[in-house]
């Protein structure tokens, strides 16, 4: 034995209960419902919060696109075909005038065989706000002519240019949002319902149901997506009304998207079913329905909503791709994809690049949904 070491005893007073009291802030935290905890956690994700605000604004405005768009969806302007975007100016000859545009003078370049629009910078044409403009019928119920923004009296305001029929791109994009943004929601609703039911059955019942669902999912996932979309859309009868086609397309998108969600539901259910609190509920004698409703669904719903949010972009892109190829929605129904359909022609794109502008809202929406989904996914389990 080497030299004995001293027997050390900590002289500080000993309080076994030290550090067990709880501050008011902690008390508030521990009494907060899980929804509130999710919100608190989500709030810290700046980008997701921004995306939520953006998407929220977009969806809130959807019922009022008629009011927001300066022109109607189908208003043609024969003398302004393929007009480039009109710039908004504030100063005329050094004087502040407020937002205004210059009128276009149409010229035909006989040398290049091109249309040319020249700004007539002699007179400013102030834009009008909160004004009366083109009449429309809101929700098929009210006749109105109120707009947020109208072209100058006697002038035009094609802020994003016009297409081959002289229709205002900005107005058409605004109207297109209505279709493009709802396609995702309706599609995800279908996919959600299917995924929840089939994934839920597979996860909860297990056995041969599980086996069957899994094999179906594998087969569906092995199908090449784009050709299948094309085939299915091509199979939609040509005589269907545009509205029916719209629902047909969302149905196709939803039908092909559910496997991802079903797998997520199944995996989550399998892991939740092994949790002791579910077994505790079984041992109490709780019915299967009660276990699903009170224990399983609340515990995986937040995860599921996050994954659903992350699959909305695929829907929007899917619709856009189909419509771009001319196999999705057809005019007169207007979506961003339908608008981009006009940009299929390379010559048109080089001459009239503003036809590609509908890509910007598509990208913004898809990014926003991705950020939102990321934020939701991170916040979905506030107890981790």
């Amino acid at each position, binding site marked *: 034995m*080497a030299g004995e070491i001293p027997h050390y005893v900590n002289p500080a007073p000993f309080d076994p209960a030290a550090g067990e009291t709880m501050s008011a802030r902690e008390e508030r935290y521990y009494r907060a419902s899980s929804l509130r905890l999710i919100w608190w956690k989500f709030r810290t994700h700046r980008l997701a919060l921004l995306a939520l605000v953006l998407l929220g604004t977009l969806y809130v405005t959807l019922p009022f696109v008629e009011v927001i768009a300066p022109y109607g969806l189908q208003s043609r302007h024969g003398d302004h075909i393929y007009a480039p975007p009109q710039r908004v100016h504030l100063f005329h000859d050094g004087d502040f005038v407020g937002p205004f545009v210059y009128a276009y003078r149409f010229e035909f370049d006989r040398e290049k065989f091109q249309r040319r629009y020249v700004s007539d910078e002699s007179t400013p044409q102030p834009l009008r706000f909160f004004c009366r403009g083109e009449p429309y019928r809101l929700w098929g119920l009210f006749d109105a002519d109120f707009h947020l923004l109208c072209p100058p009296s006697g002038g035009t305001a094609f802020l994003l240019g016009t297409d081959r029929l002289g229709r205002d791109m900005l107005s058409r994009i605004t109207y297109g949002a209505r279709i493009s943004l709802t396609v995702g929601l309706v599609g995800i609703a279908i996919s959600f319902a299917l995924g929840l039911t089939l994934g839920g059955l597979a996860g909860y019942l297990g056995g041969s149901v599980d086996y069957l669902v899994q094999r179906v999912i594998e087969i569906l996932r092995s199908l090449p997506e784009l050709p299948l979309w094309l085939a299915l859309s091509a199979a939609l009868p040509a005589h269907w009304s545009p509205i029916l086609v719209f629902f047909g397309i969302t149905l196709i998108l939803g039908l092909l998207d559910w496997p991802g969600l079903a797998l997520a539901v199944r995996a989550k259910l399998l892991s939740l079913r092994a949790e002791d*609190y579910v077994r*505790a509920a079984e041992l109490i004698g709780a019915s299967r329905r009660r276990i699903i409703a009170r224990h399983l669904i609340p515990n995986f719903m937040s995860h599921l909503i996050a994954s659903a949010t992350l699959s909305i972009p695929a829907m929007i892109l899917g619709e856009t791709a189909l419509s771009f190829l001319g196999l999705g929605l057809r005019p007169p129904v207007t979506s961003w994809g339908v608008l981009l359909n006009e940009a299929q022609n390379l010559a048109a794109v080089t001459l009239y690049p503003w036809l590609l502008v509908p890509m910007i809202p598509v990208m913004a929406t898809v990014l926003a949904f991705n950020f939102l989904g990321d934020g939701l996914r991170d916040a979905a389990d506030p107890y981790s």
Partner: protein
Amino acid sequence: MAEPTTGRRELLDIRNLGVSFETATGPVQALRNAQFAIPRGRTFALVGESGSGKSVTAQAIMGLLPANGRITGGTIEFFGKRDGGAVDIARLSPSSKAMRALRGDRIAMIFQEPMSSLSPVHTVGNQVTEAMRIHTRASRAEAADAAMALFHRVGFRDPKAMLRTYPFELSGGMRQRAMIAMALICDPVLLIADEPTTALDVTTQAQILHLIRELQDERDMAVLLITHDLGIVNTMADEIAVMFRGEIMESGTRDQLLRDPRHPYLRALMRAVPRFHMMPGERLVPLREIRLPAVAEAPASPGAPRDVLSVEGISKSFYPRAAPWARKRQAIPAVTDVGFTLKAGRTLGIVGESGSGKTTVARIVTRALAPDAGRIRFDDGSGLTDITDLDPGRLKAFRRWIQYVFQDPHSSLDPRMTVEQILTEPLTVHRDGTPAQRRERAAELIELVGLNRRHLKRYPHSFSGGQRQRIGMARALALSPSVIVCDEPTSALDVSVQAQILNLLRDLQARLGLSYLFVSHNLAVVDYMADDIMVMCRGMVVERAPRARLFSAPVHPYTKVLIAAVPDLDIDRPLDVAAAGAVLRPGDWPEPFRIGPEPARSAMVEVAPDHFVRYGDAAIGAVA
């Protein structure tokens, strides 16, 4: 060992060490003024409960603190460099070359989870030789030779095959051996063992502890043993430091501390550990006792207690997952021919190691699983009735009589329900009372387990493990059951909290006249709780006897090994680690206990009143 000695007694000298962590709610001081020295060639034990800072100390020594942690002061002087010099680890950058030269070479570490500390995609041989090839200039062949020699030493029968074995092919104990080989390949002078046997069964634990001690003697290596188990400390340590909330409470030699504990925390800890040979009626003293609200005790029922639960010959096999049309599925027997009776107001302990079938029995008894064969009868006051095949309606009615307390306090409470919702749920399911009455009952229950009415509106994540376990017990009591199955209720808890929960269970039993089926791998805990004990191995009951009888006169070799393998706190009775031999397979048991391969025959034989032992086929043949 040809170590150039500096003449110092210490190998590692820690002075005034502080570590703090940056968290979302501000800095947290995880370690304050830690001061101790690890002597060369000896074992130094850091003892403490969760959150005491013992693992943080090890991480600081290894230079492996998490990214949000940093050393706030003090020194960690290490006198074991290859050139014999000294170095202050606290001043080395964790990623510096000097630190990397120490880590894995001079200081090695083994962890609690042998599965996650070995890479699943590399062979064991690969991982063991890797360390050697990093730190020395050994060739591939030299490293392989060294690894095989070490594999042989740590107890692998075929060292050559181990070079090509993957970790998932090994059992937990074998993996820990591989981990030890990996740690020792470079001949470290200090081995840090962080809860090396916590994930293992007691018999395996005894073997691993034995191995560590032998290797230490052979190599003159110092061991820093980090553990929460005072029994292991008593078995292994030369010197001890006891930690609590980041501070050392008491330190000294094993004799000083265990014979003469002076700090109130160590004293409390020692009184909280269940030991063998406790006096009848002796009570554990937890750090914080729970006082039950005063109510008259349940009147003791006159005469011999009746049987509430009677189980005869139950068996259960599981079938691994396979395609639905696959005809031939290999049955894996989990429980074979188990029978027992549970008397009213008494506790039956079921002891066994992992895979012994004890939890399966518990689940069959609660009818969470249906047995393949056998009969379960239960008495709700109107005589024993068969509950093996109940229709759903009667099964639900039966459920209120038997409730379950789970092992894992974190998964047993629904995180999205308030405590009140959790406690009223059983009443809602059984339509007992009005909503107001249910809430009143929830308040009664929460007070019954020593918590406060204020806690009802909180969610489970705000409670500590012990508090959650008490909420789980309150839920089990909601329907006033007569039997509660406790499935390892304290194995996830610290010892001081364990004592609190065990005492609470005993108090509730006395007050409410409950019967417990108490399942545990910890023989000392079962000893403290049970009136009768049933020892299980490989799905069979090998011995069943009254508590005192089982410990004073065990008959079955497996029971004997199990008792011998528990590290006890009694300093004059340190664990005989060598005694824990390999008698884990029924085929290896000596006659007349040996149970041969299929068709195995065995039977329980009453060797004394109420004392049953399982004998093997040869013995039964001789009797018949």
